[in-house]
């Protein structure tokens, strides 16, 4: 069964079978405003926790989205190339950013659950 984790940087991860789908939270998309471009990672790219994985660009500014854990990119949400506003309208579903095969599942233990994330954003 899939389990969902959150980070203090306003990302969510849905983990199933050693693969995490990563996106930004609804709170984050609201803060960023209307997105006009998403720079997606290359397939096979090896990410280390804290690396910039994706850059999301609003009308006004570019913001980094960091790799929440170590792993290898297995898929990028290419529908965002034609419709980056999916991140605004469906941040936690169709607006996912990338999928990664986890290098070390024990890193998930350091992440937040939904209740802790909700407390974090207040």
């Amino acid at each position: 069964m899939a389990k969902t984790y959150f980070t203090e940087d306003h990302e969510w991860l849905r983990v199933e079978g050693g693969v995490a789908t990563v996106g930004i939270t609804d709170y984050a998309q609201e803060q960023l405003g209307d997105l006009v471009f998403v720079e997606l990672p290359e397939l096979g790219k090896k990410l280390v926790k804290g690396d910039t994985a994706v850059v999301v660009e609003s009308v006004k500014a570019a913001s980094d989205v960091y790799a929440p854990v170590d792993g290898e990119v297995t898929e990028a949400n290419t529908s965002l190339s034609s419709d980056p506003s999916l991140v605004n309208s469906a941040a936690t579903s169709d607006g996912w950013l990338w999928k990664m095969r986890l290098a070390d599942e024990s890193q998930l233990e350091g992440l937040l659950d939904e209740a802790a994330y909700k407390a974090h954003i207040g």
Partner: protein
Amino acid sequence: MTGDDTKHLPLEDLHVAAGARFGAFAGWSMPLTYPAGVMKEHLHTREHAGLFDISHMKLFEISGSGTVALLNRACPLDAGALEISQSKYTFFLNEAAGILDDLIVTRLGQARFMVVANAGNAEADEKHLRALAMDFDAKVDALDRVFLAIQGPEAWAALSRGGIETGALLFMHGFEPRENWFMSRSGYTGEDGFEIGLPEADARNLVAKLLEDERVMWVGLAARDSLRLEAGLCLHGLDITPETDPASAGLMWAIPKEVRASSAFIGADALRSILERGPAQKRVGLKPEGRQPVRTGAALFDADGDPAGHVTSGGFGPSAAHPVAMGYVQTSLSKPGAKLFADVRGTKIPVDINPLPFTPHRYRKG
């Protein structure tokens, strides 16, 4: 947002009630966006009417028999040639012809003018004006006003419904419709529109009336920036600075020929020599290929990979539906057709020189 030197708009409570998200700009806490979001606010302005609180900008009234001479010294301007109610876009220049600020000057009477200055430069402008005024019979008054802009094709109709008739007023003209009011047909969006300086109590009444009209919505600073960028209008501090001059900035249209030849204004000699040898760089519109925005500070390169200039403003144009930018490039590369590349996080993005504006101006000139 409190407890420091940040300045607050007199109507801040209205923006809070409207759900604005605030951010710092030029020492002010400003509404950046409202719940509609930058995209909708931008498009609404081009289709209907956007209401902007621009009270961070400063109005100066200058009066006295030496006012024309003072303005002719401070700006590359023939203030005496302006008809009453006529406005003119002009600058304060330094001795090197660098742009200290860009301004709109409106003639209110024989020896009375209104000067509208940018927020970030208001204090320096006031000092500069007061120092110059000592050599002339001229009085400088910094006015305490709320300043509103209503912009878009339905701005005039919304004002009319709110009891303010604008029929006779043409683009780049201004007058005083009521006591302590100043209204001009001007703006920073490329659309028809108006800017109104008025006392706070009057402003609260006007805002309430305007917002009853479904054609009018609050628009924040984020959309103000994307609107002006599409319209090819400069932001002082980015696109024009004390290190750039009107010739490099492509703003010589603002300086009448006879004025260029005179030595009345500060910076005249420097500007003349820049014009004689030709500016080394020129401001141009830039259209990045694809959807990825190219932003302030990005370096530009020519086809051989040699430095060609830099981007001064950039973002996404909601009406243009593609990224838009402007910047300075070497004069030899400043023509449409030049092949340029912008460095964005290590990737070279092809960029075309694009004529400005990106979206056609729709001013009401008569």
